[in-house]
């Protein structure tokens, strides 16, 4: 039997606790796109070092875990133009829409925020449409 859902649940609880620590500790929303985006477009003159500390943890902890033998897989496609196009869309979209899976999805839905709920439905719906087109409509995996 496929036990991936248990790892999903355990990892999800860890993600939720991380967001709770950031909220109760520093009074801030844990949104990956907001934390990074605010640093690079100059809209976050304050709290730069706090954001940097968050990123050190976010990038560093998986690096440590993988170095100590935890399996880290991405299975990312090798299609470079597709990767670059996707990255550009994700960067644009998360900043224009003010959030991504962590900010709108985890922090917004848990607060029953109408914006978080609608944004999550929109990006999951669009993502599903794109996957349907790529995998089943246009015939390449």
């Amino acid at each position, binding site marked *: 039997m496929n036990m991936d859902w248990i790892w999903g649940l355990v*990892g999800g609880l860890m993600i939720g606790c991380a967001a709770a620590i950031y909220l109760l500790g*520093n009074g801030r929303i844990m949104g990956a796109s907001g934390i990074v985006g605010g640093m690079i477009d100059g809209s976050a003159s304050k709290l730069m070092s706090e954001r940097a500390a968050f990123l050190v943890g976010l990038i560093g902890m998986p690096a440590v875990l993988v170095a100590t033998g935890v399996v880290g897989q991405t299975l990312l496609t090798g299609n470079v133009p597709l990767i670059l196009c996707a990255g550009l869309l994700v960067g644009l979209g998360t900043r224009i829409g003010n959030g991504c899976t962590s900010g709108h999805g985890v922090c917004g839905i848990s607060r029953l925020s109408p914006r978080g709920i609608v944004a999550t439905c929109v*990006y999951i719906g669009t993502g599903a449409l794109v996957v349907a087109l790529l995998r089943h409509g246009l015939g390449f995996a």
Partner: protein
Amino acid sequence: MRHLIALISGALFGAGLLVSGMTNTQKVLGFLDFFGDWDPTLVFVMGGAIVPMAVAWAYTRGRKPLNGDSFPAPADPRLDRSLIVGGVLFGAGWGLVGLCPGPALASLSFGGIGGLGFLLAMLAGMVLAPVARRRLDSIGPSH
């Protein structure tokens, strides 16, 4: 203290993304593949993440954060054009390769050159976003 909390939160977030499988693009694309061999793992990740966060939001009532004066106020509930356009653009990019900002950062150490390329393109998109957003706002009233 603020920095220690940010570091711990980021580390736990990164570990959670790795453990849950969200740094694996095939699991994310499997979740988005509603018309194929659907993978429900992301439902458990989202469900597991929302529960502690809902408890945290309930706890914030009438209290202050450990560091700082106040908790974030609820956003204006109105749904504007940029929320929808942003969601569509993000969803399209997410569906193309299965990476969103958190996992793109968390997988930097093992995502190879493709992961780095995605991250750099994402940062470029973030730099361009304020320009795109001003264009969007200039079209007319957005509510």
